[in-house]
């Protein structure tokens, strides 16, 4: 039976947060074709062609967009997953190997960068065609680029200075090839993983239209024309109920087409008979089912109603039951980090948070191993820095590989007392203000008390308990933590990037990571979260050296740039590092093969197959 009766409280998955991944992955992620090999002993059968599979989407995931350019409010994770099956992005990554794109799943061959890293040349694949018979050409990419360039502020993924601002010139070389001159040198890994993945060829010969019933032209080549074309296409994209019928969306180049797309969020993908690439679908249809709550999904799973579903973490005690019903249960690790940002601009606690020794004391009070084991039932991995801890790769710095701040309450307390804090009535109080080595630090006034306020996401017992544990250990070193829980969206509403004088800056600490705080694109650099001017640097962390290292990680070609960045932030603690929960604990029918649980939360259903 349904184990967690606590209703849909767990429902709100951080779609918004995943949205980050989604758009960056918009192009999507897909596997290198590895996965469960046919004839896998676990499956013990022979792969079949054809058949149908049902996949359970997370609670409240309601896909609502199909057009390859997402406007704000349309960045939910599953929009990207669905779109990349129909309209192939230029490049797709699979999080099990973040070092290079999964070429088979994308629309182009590997990019070639110039020696100086200031230009990139890309050749489209030879064998891809649109459903109307036209070849997929470089012109189709230019069409996408022109629309983005003229309408960038309406593009949900636009960040000033990044794509398309960092492209000085887009040149068509021939039918299949184009070159982009960049405004500066970039790290090729970063540029491919975090910028090129956003590009997606669109059928210019079918979509370059300014109004309903209009003629196809080269309108996108003038900014005014590009605006009109964009508005027309966005208008059509808003008609969700026509996704399965509108002739525009029939011009697909991916392994699937849309067969059903309901307003409640159910989507059925059907094998695209006109697909000409080498990554054709094995299955006839794949249905993505929406659920209002995790326990609703669990009930359906228990009745065998989905082939690929998930278990809420608390329901792990049911693993045996589920397995006996012909499923295998596997955690789906996320290419993500989980953390609690400090609001360095909070007028009361900002000066306190700016003291590194305070952040060190706090970090030493987080018993990550026990939290992961007892509270998360081993479905979370301790994290020590800005790069996802698993799977371990070449991006992890030395300092982040092992925990630089081991759980040690005595040491944590000593850090406070040696800096002029005295515990009075259980709360540390500053008795020696000033900037000296044994003093509280710059800006911390005499009599300041270490009383922190934390906003946290409601609806998850694991998260509630993690915060209680944190509160308990902090209280042992003299820090009083008061907790307020709110729905995820409210937490995000209430912890914006802010200036000290703004009323919105009253938040001090904020947690929104029940399913991971931040999902990375393949290259886990920090320009969006830890750079001083980053849009999602919620706590306004600002450190010149960190800024330098972030910049180096995106623009220098040095292979150690990421490691240096990882090591420095692991020690400098821009946030409280917390254990990173699995994306989900999946239950996959044993008769379903070819599944790769992509840590970047993408899917490659074209490679799934049924075994007999």
């Amino acid at each position, binding site marked *: 039976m349904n184990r967690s*009766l*606590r209703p849909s*409280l767990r429902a709100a998955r951080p779609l918004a947060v995943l949205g980050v991944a989604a758009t960056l992955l918009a192009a999507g992620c897909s596997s290198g074709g590895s996965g469960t090999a046919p004839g896998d002993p676990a499956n013990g059968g022979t792969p079949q062609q054809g058949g149908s599979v049902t996949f359970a989407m997370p609670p409240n995931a309601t896909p609502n967009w199909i057009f390859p350019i997402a406007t704000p409010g349309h960045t939910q994770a599953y929009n990207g997953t669905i779109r990349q099956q129909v309209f192939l992005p230029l490049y797709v990554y699979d999080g099990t190997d973040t070092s290079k794109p999964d070429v088979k799943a994308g629309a182009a061959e590997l990019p070639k960068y110039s020696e100086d890293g200031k230009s990139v040349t890309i050749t489209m694949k030879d064998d891809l065609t649109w459903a109307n018979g036209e070849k997929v050409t470089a012109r189709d990419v230019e069409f996408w680029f022109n629309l983005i360039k003229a309408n960038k502020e309406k593009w949900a993924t636009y960040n000033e200075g990044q794509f398309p601002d960092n492209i000085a010139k887009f040149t068509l070389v021939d039918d299949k090839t184009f070159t982009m001159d960049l405004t500066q040198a970039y790290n090729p890994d970063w540029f491919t993983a975090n910028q090129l993945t956003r590009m997606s060829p669109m059928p210019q010969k079918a979509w370059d239209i300014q109004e309903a019933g209009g003629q196809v032209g080269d309108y996108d080549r003038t900014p005014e024309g590009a605006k009109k074309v964009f508005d027309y296409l966005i208008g059509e994209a808003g008609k969700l109920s026509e996704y399965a019928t509108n002739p525009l969306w029939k011009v697909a180049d991916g392994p699937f087409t849309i067969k059903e797309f309901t307003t409640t969020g159910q989507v059925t993908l059907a094998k695209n008979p006109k697909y000409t690439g080498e990554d054709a679908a094995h299955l006839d249809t794949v249905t993505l089912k929406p659920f209002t709550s995790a326990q609703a999904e669990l009930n359906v799973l228990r009745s065998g109603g989905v082939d690929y579903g998930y278990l809420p973490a608390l329901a792990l005690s049911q693993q045996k039951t589920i397995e006996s019903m012909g499923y295998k249960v596997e955690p789906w690790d996320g290419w993500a980090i989980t953390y609690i940002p400090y609001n360095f601009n909070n007028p009361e606690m900002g000066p306190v948070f700016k003291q590194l020794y305070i952040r060190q004391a706090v970090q030493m009070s987080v018993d990550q191993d026990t939290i992961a084991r007892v509270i998360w039932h081993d479905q979370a991995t301790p994290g020590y820095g800005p790069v996802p801890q698993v799977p371990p790769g070449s991006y992890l710095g030395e300092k982040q590989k092992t925990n630089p701040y081991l759980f040690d309450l005595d040491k944590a307390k000593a850090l406070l007392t040696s800096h002029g804090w005295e515990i009075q009535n259980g709360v540390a109080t500053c008795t020696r203000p000033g900037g000296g080595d044994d003093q509280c630090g710059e800006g911390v006034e005499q009599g300041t008390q270490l009383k922190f306020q934390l906003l946290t996401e*409601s609806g998850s*017992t694991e998260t509630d*308990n993690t915060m209680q544990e944190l509160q308990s250990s902090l209280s042992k070193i003299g820090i009083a933590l008061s907790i*307020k*829980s*709110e729905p995820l969206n409210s937490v995000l509403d209430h912890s914006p990037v802010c200036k000290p004088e703004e009323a919105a800056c009253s938040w001090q600490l904020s947690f929104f990571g029940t399913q991971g705080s931040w999902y990375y694109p393949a290259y886990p650099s920090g320009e969006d979260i830890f750079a001083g001017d980053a849009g999602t640097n919620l706590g306004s962390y600002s450190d010149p050296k960190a800024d330098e290292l972030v910049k180096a990680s995106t623009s220098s070609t040095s292979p150690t740039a990421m490691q240096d960045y990882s090591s420095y932030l692991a020690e400098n603690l821009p946030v409280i590092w917390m254990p990173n929960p699995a994306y989900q604990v999946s239950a996959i029918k044993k008769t379903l093969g070819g599944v790769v649980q992509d840590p970047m939360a993408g899917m490659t259903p074209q490679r799934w197959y049924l075994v007999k």
Partner: protein
Amino acid sequence: MTASVPSPVVAAQPAPVVGPYRRMVRLFFANRLAVTGLVLLALLLLFCFVGPLVHPTDQIHTQLADANLAPGVKGHPLGTDDVGRDVLGRLMVGGQTSLEIGIAAGLLATLIGTVWGAVAGYTGGWLDAIMMRVVDAGIAIPALFLLLVSATIFRPTVTTQILIIGCVSWLVPARLVRAEALSLRSRDFVQAMMAMGGSHRRAVFRHIIPNAIGTVVVNATFQVADAILLVAYVSFLGLGVAPPATDWGAMLSNGISYTYDGYWWLIFPAGIAIILVVSAFNCIGDGLRDSFEVRLQGR
């Protein structure tokens, strides 16, 4: 007034001033359910507020190494919860919160409702019309919505919970008292006082409210019972008091997540405690109502 208590209205006797009250007390104590309720409540109060002296536990710190221990293990008579706190001790502090919020919020609601209803009923006319439309509107909005919104504005402490719950549940007493006030207004003694030039404030506070006291007191008991239940719902929806504090509703809804692990000690003690305390208040209220009805009849 009822079939089973034949002619309870020994009406014409001009009783001495204390008479009706003494009678009431006697009647109340003759009501077996009411007495049971009173005894139950006394026991629960003792358990929650004196219990921690007898069974001191650490309810501030978590003890992950000792999570989910079964009753009896390591000196925990009722086991431990999912972060290793002693459940028996937690039941005591949780009960303190539930009772404090419930009683205070119930009384607050009664207070607001009584004054609102008395003023509206006594004044009548357009003021009454406006005041009662506000009450109607308040009744028409699900309390849950108000609770959800307030929870995003205020930090959930015992005080804010009292204020919020008190402010969403004063509507029913307001209607009851207004009805009472309407009928009292036309009574001779109020009319007489008005004729002698008494102030309106005096009329409301010296005459209307004291004479509606029966309705008010009985309703207050039920309000407290309902407020305790409401506290439980609020916690169930994840909007309850912040940890390390807790209340019975929060304990119950947290325990429900572990139903299929067989951790019954996380569910039933808190659930039964809620049922006992709410029933106790309802029994007392019922007994009081019977007593007051007799007194009114006697007047």
